[in-house]
């Protein structure tokens, strides 16, 4: 998924900070006071926004509310359920597979994000130092990112095959292992294999966006720091890291949302197995809601992601607004 348009967010979208009543009556008051040309502009804007709002209303807002409703019913596919309160959530809370899935999701998100950020940062720094080949490397590096995830994950599944694994062959020939590793066979090793594939797929995105951020930092700052006797390590932590932080934050928060809600990697690589030990929220919701047609329970497992996602989005909005009011370090940008 791309990151676009973030820094301009607060310009266009001042979050309503005044009182609720003020915010509600303001448009009405303005409507009364508006001149004819103003009203025509509003009408034009409304017409332009109508297609988007219809689509998003019908296929995002409505399903979201419907999802909350479903999670409170005992609906199954094809039958409207009855209201059961928070029974589904209580059931999930007592469900050891769901608990495991929740734990997996947090471990998966944390481990994959830290690894992607570290690797992505290293690659971005190296690319930034590189003279030639930059375009070629950047282009080839992005392949995992643009190729359909399911298809590249299939290749990984084949590479992890218990009997024909090329990874085992390589490690064996290089002398790292003597016995085969069943990459997707045990609960812990399977989870780490999934994390590995996620890192493989996500690192290019980190590297390329961070590189774009690095390229906006003026080399003068680095020269100045070097003249003052700062070591490369110090220059990174004292100069590069703080200047890059706004970009890093946007990329990280974005990746956290994507990883937290991931489905495809686990679905293809392990299908939640062995013995339901590698489920994430999304794959377990799929298993409940589609494979066993328990729509209500599935919706509840999926809605269970919401609080965490909500917090991340809230933090992101807050961070972007804060970053814009401060504009720290802009003078050091090209």
């Amino acid at each position, binding site marked *: 998924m791309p990151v676009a348009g973030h*820094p301009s967010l607060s310009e266009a979208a001042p979050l309503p900070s005044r009182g609720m009543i003020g915010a509600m009556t303001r448009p009405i008051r303005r409507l009364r006071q508006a001149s004819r040309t103003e009203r025509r502009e509003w009408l034009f804007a409304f017409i332009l926004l109508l297609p988007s709002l219809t689509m998003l209303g019908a*296929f995002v807002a409505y399903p979201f509310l419907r999802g909350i409703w479903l999670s409170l019913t005992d609906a199954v596919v094809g039958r409207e359920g009855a209201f059961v309160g928070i029974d589904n959530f209580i059931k999930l809370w007592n469900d050891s597979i769901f608990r495991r899935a929740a734990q997996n999701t947090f471990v998966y998100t944390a481990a994959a994000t830290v690894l992607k950020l570290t690797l992505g940062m290293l690659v971005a720094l190296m690319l930034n130092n590189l003279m030639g080949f930059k375009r070629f490397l950047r282009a080839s590096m992005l392949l995992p990112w*643009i190729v359909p995830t399911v298809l590249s994950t299939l290749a990984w599944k084949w590479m992890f095959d218990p009997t024909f694994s090329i990874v085992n062959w390589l490690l064996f020939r290089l002398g790292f292992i003597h016995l085969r590793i069943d990459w997707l066979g045990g609960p812990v090793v399977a989870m780490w294999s999934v994390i590995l594939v996620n890192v493989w797929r996500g690192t290019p995105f980190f590297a390329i966006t961070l590189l774009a951020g690095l390229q906006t930092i003026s080399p003068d700052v680095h020269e100045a720091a070097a003249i003052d006797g700062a070591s490369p390590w110090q220059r990174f932590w004292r100069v590069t890291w703080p200047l890059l932080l706004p970009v890093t934050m946007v990329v990280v928060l974005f990746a956290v949302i994507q990883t937290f*809600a991931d489905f495809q990697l686990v679905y293809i690589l392990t299908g939640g197995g062995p013995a339901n030990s590698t489920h994430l929220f999304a794959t377990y919701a799929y298993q409940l809601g589609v494979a066993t047609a328990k729509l209500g329970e599935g919706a509840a497992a999926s809605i269970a992601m919401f609080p965490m996602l909500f917090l991340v989005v809230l933090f992101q909005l807050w961070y972007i607004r804060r970053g814009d009011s401060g504009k720290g370090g802009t003078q050091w940008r090209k």
Partner: protein
Amino acid sequence: MAQVTGARWRRWVSLYLPLGIFVLVTLFPFYYMAVTAVRPDREMYIPWNRPNFAPFWTLHPTLEHFKLLFTETLFARWLLNTMTIATLSTGIALFCGLLAAYALARLRFPGGGALGTGIFVTYLVPQTLLFLPLGDVIRTFHLSDTPWALIFTYPTFLIPFCTWLMMGYFRTIPKELEECAQIDGATRLQAMVRIVFPVAMPGILSAGIFAFTLSWNEFIYALVFLSSAPNKTIPVGVVSELVRGDTFFWGPLMAGALLGSVPVAFIYSFFVEQYVSAMTGAVKG
């Protein structure tokens, strides 16, 4: 002199070598996908610890897997489905996104800021949060197992993206341009369609390419909303029809994966710069 060689060494160890390994690891699965796709079955299923296991190449390349793909599965149909769905949903998303972006970037109206934030937030809503209730909505509209189920739902994650990308782009176009047109007697609508949109063409192209790849790659909606084999898209068709229980037909699977990746890789190779600029977008700030 010794110092220069030392510096060169350090550059190799700290730069070229790690980057080389990184690129190798990045690209290897694709290479392996390609080798597997042309490897005959009798060579494929040799356990990895046998001495004659030669995984990196094959001396007897074959097209049998591709043949199987086109004669015994509906791969050609899936290709067509994926293409149609990606094109139409990209079209819808560009249309909606362009208009919305223009309104949000250029027009002043009450509630505009909140709407902008709202669209940004929908951009962050993952598909996995909505797929169950959305499947229910799709059933209510009697769209299950038709391409329309995807053509109407893919724009939900494409519109927010296109809107934000285009808003950024519109801001770089001077207002004076359309003001001049309006002084010359054009209406606001004419100024938008005749003046602003053509100038914004590179941005529209970036958004379109990106949206097309996103819809090409989408998986979970296609998995849940489509059920009969002839209606499937490539990712879903390959996964569901070439895996029977525990049996994976690796040859055709990898051939299908390769063919399913080639179109996006091909488009991408022509528009790398637009793609990267769309991806890094306004992150540069």
